[in-house]
Each structure stands twice: as structure tokens, then as C-alpha cells.
């Protein structure tokens, strides 16, 4: 199983907030947000919660598990 996310969608729905602005809000580097969005990096529970809190949704709304082979 692998972790996927809808971070790009949520950024778009929140006034197309930039990766840098989101990084400032959750206090990480822009590259970290970029890596999460492109699936290169799985965030810690703390960071996932911070991101969810910023968008005012649950962690599961943004992050979800996918079986290998599934789209």
C-alpha cells in the first residue's frame, strides 16, 4: 500500500495558495510541500495534522491509502 494525497486540489480550492505560503503556514520548506504533493515524501503525523488543520478538514480527507497497482 502507498500513501497518496489531494494536496494540490485543496491548495486550488483555497484560492490557489502557493506551495511557499502553505509551507510558511505549517512551518516547513517549500521543497517539503512539493515532495509531499508529488508523492516523493510521506509526511509525519504531526505535519499531516497541521496541513489538515490549515485546510479545516480531517487528515483522511487529504491523505489516503491506495493498494499497489491501483490508480
Amino acid at each position, binding site marked *: 500500500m502507498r500513501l497518496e494525497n489531494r494536496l494540490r486540489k485543496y491548495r486550488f480550492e483555497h484560492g490557489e495558495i502557493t*506551495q511557499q505560503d502553505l509551507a*510558511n503556514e505549517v*512551518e516547513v*520548506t*517549500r*521543497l*517539503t510541500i512539493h515532495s509531499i504533493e508529488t508523492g516523493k515524501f510521506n509526511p509525519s503525523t504531526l505535519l499531516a495534522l497541521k496541513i489538515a488543520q490549515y485546510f479545516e478538514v480531517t487528515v483522511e480527507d487529504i491523505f489516503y491509502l491506495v493498494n499497489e497497482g491501483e490508480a
Partner: protein
Amino acid sequence: MKRRKLLRIITLILGLATMLFFVYVLIVFSRVRGKIESFLPLTGGEETMILWVGFGLIMVLIFYLLSLYLVVRKIRHSEKMPFLLTALVIFGVIAVLFVFADIALLSDIINQYEAGLDQPEWSLLYPILSGQFVIAVVFTLLHGARFFIRNELKEIRRDGNVFQIVQFVGVICGGMGLTAGILGFFYPNSWNQLVHTTISTLILLFPYFLTVLYWFLVKFKEGDRQFFDEKQQLDIGSSAFWTLIVSSVVMTGLYVGNYYTLEGVIRLTWLPFHLFTVMFLFSLGNIYFSRRV
């Protein structure tokens, strides 16, 4: 912002003075080179002119360092790492290191002239000065166009770009340090511990030290004083792991390869080899792991 504008004006003036200085160097060298190569005596005026070349190089060094500071500051406030600015840092660091090469070559030329020996260093000095002149022109034009005082982003709570710059500088200084160390195996008899090991190691560490110092200052300005975010910690961990493996193999190879000559040049170069191997591998690893797709 006012401080940066003032810095820009000072750097612009220094840039123009640097370009004039390179013209001055060309005039001085065209006048004295023939005499030095033919071992003819120099006049008092000509000796003074050469002395001013030395003072001028200090100004050139300050110009490059201020320019690099403004470039790195601009990169810090950029959303991504722009290719042009990264290239400017790379060429700027090389230009800084070559100022020390200029001083070493000029000093060698004068010493060999006084000892009645040939000076093959002239053939190295001209290409290096030409490269430095081109870099000075590019920096000065960009200062003139106010390129470095416009910020792309106002607020960055957690730096990522200066950290990347530290890694690029680490690769340059580490790579040059390794190259300098390898030269010891080709010229073991002329290797001097003070000049070729101690001083050259300190010079090659100088830009890295300054960049790390700036990164520290950036970190201290950040509110929570956390040095790395979680992705950077992961990248550093992976990079440190590979650095441990590869540097152990390299240093063991160096030991085995010199097993019967451990009293030779390796005795003088093992520390720079270790330092620059680790710096090069760790920095390269951090660039790779932070950018891999």
C-alpha cells in the same frame, strides 16, 4: 531595504573599480612581463605598480564576496532555485577561490624571478584573470540593473534555498580540494606541507565556512530555531549513510594504495583528502536526495 540599496551602490562602485583594475593589471603585466622573463631589473615605479596589483586583488575579493552575499540573499527570497542565480553562485565561488590562486601565482612568479628561474605560471595567470574579468562584468551589469534587490517572496518562515546553496558550495570546495590533493601524487617532491596542505585547505574551506555561517544566521532569525524540517532530516540521514560507506571505501583504498609509501606525500595530504571527500560526498548526497524524483 535601505541597507541593501546602499550595499548595492557600494558593490556597483566596487564592480566598476574591479573592471578598471583588470585593465590596470593588463597594462602592468604587458610592461613588466618581458623584463621579468628576461631577468632584467625592474624600476622602483614598476615594483610599486606590482605592489598595487596585490592591493587591488583584495578589493576584487571584497567585490566578489559582497556580490555573492546579494545573490544568496536573492535566492533565499526566491520561490524556487533559479538556474541563473545558482550558476552565479558557482562561478562567484570559483572567482573567489581564484583570487587566492592569483596571489599564489604572482608570489611564485616574483620568487622565481628573484631566484633566476623560469616562470611558467604566466600561462596560467592570464586565463584565470580573463575568467575573473568576465564574472566581474556579469555581476556589475546585474548590480547596475538592480537585479539583486528585487525580492520574489516577502516571507519565508523555513529556509530551504540557502541550505541548497550550502550544498552546492560544498560540492565545489570539496571537488577542488580533492583535485588539489590528487596533485600531490603527481608532484610529491615539490609538495610543501604549509603551503599545499595547510594554507590551501584553509582557503578552500573559506567559502564553505562563510556560506554555512550565513545559513546559521538565517536559522537563528527563524522563530522556532529548528535547524531542519522533517524532509531535510530524512535527506541528511540518507546522505550521511552513503557518505559513511563511500568515504570508508575511498579512505581504505587510499590507505591500501599507499601502504608501502605511507611516509610519502600521503602523510601530508590524508587530512585534506578526508575532509574534502566527506564534504564533497555529503553535499552531493544532500543535493541528490532533496531533488530526486
